[in-house]
């Protein structure tokens, strides 16, 4: 499941279409406070199906849409696409890549897509199930998860162990 790219548009501070390529084993993300680094992490969680407003640092899900500045108006659509190599053949072998997209319109309508074709969140979850990637998997290790382990809120330690089992 080698990552290939992440495309973000209209999501939080990423008003413009932005692409990151993941061609290396260890990728660093740097920049000033407030530039958008954690927003990139949020985008990855979101496209993998994260539903918790708290985990995404939102008061409500609508807040993922770029909300405008003095000189740029807000977005009508937030779209994130994460692309992997199909090296574990979770899709039929004639597919070289697996692209997962999530869209949210300002109207509240939302959509998931697999390689460009509309599908349900359920289909994406089934696809990802044995790969160890899900928005709640311990793959996403923000500083917050360190706290979860230390405080053991709502038995988070046992839930993590159960997930790995």
């Amino acid at each position, binding site marked *: *499941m080698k990552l290939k790219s992440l495309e973000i548009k209209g999501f939080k*501070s990423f008003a413009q279409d932005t692409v*990151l390529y993941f061609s290396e084993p260890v990728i660093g993300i740097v920049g000033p406070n407030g530039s958008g680094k954690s927003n990139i992490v949020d985008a990855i969680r979101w496209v993998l199906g994260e539903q918790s407003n708290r985990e995404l640092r939102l008061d409500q899900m609508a807040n993922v849409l770029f909300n405008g500045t003095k000189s740029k108006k807000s977005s009508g659509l937030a779209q994130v696409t994460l692309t992997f190599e199909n090296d574990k053949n979770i899709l039929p072998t004639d597919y070289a890549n697996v692209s997962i997209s999530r869209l949210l319109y300002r109207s509240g309508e939302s959509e998931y897509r697999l390689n460009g074709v509309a599908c349900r969140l359920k289909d994406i979850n089934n696809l990802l199930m044995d790969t160890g990637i899900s928005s709640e998997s*311990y793959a996403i290790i*923000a500083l917050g998860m*360190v706290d979860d382990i230390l405080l053991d809120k709502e038995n988070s330690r046992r839930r993590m162990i*159960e*997930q790995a*089992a």
Partner: protein
Amino acid sequence: ATEQFMDAFEKIRDNFIKVFRSLFTNDDTCDLILEDPSSPLETGIQIIAKPKGKRPQSLNQLSGGEKTLTATALLFSLYLLKPAPFCIFDEVDAPLDDANIEKFNRIIKEFSKDSQFIVVTHNKSTMAAVDIIYGVYMDEPGVSSVSAVDFRHFEHQGLSKI
């Protein structure tokens, strides 16, 4: 189900002891125990961490950096049992001193043979340890942009260019 859980628990515990010792030192001890071994499927999990010479009565007595290192050791232990295709660390190195940041980055380098790691950081020594850097910035106020940074060139310019 109980057997599956106990089997995973035992392996994670072994990993935890190994990883903890590589993040701390070989003289440091730690353990992972079930609070109530008779009901493994419901009981809470207790973490014991004793950095060299110290006898903290609970995790709470450890320092900020020691707590982060201990929690990170547990996360890596889970990872070793069931490696995720990629892992993301968002400023996890913030409370760590230079020596611990170096150990942390060395473990990431080791595991990166099998998975990809995305590391968000403000720390220069972490930046020196990664394979490629993406710089995030806002030329237009409130609007994020990203561009790959040539690290060698970047070391001299400093981050102010970004």
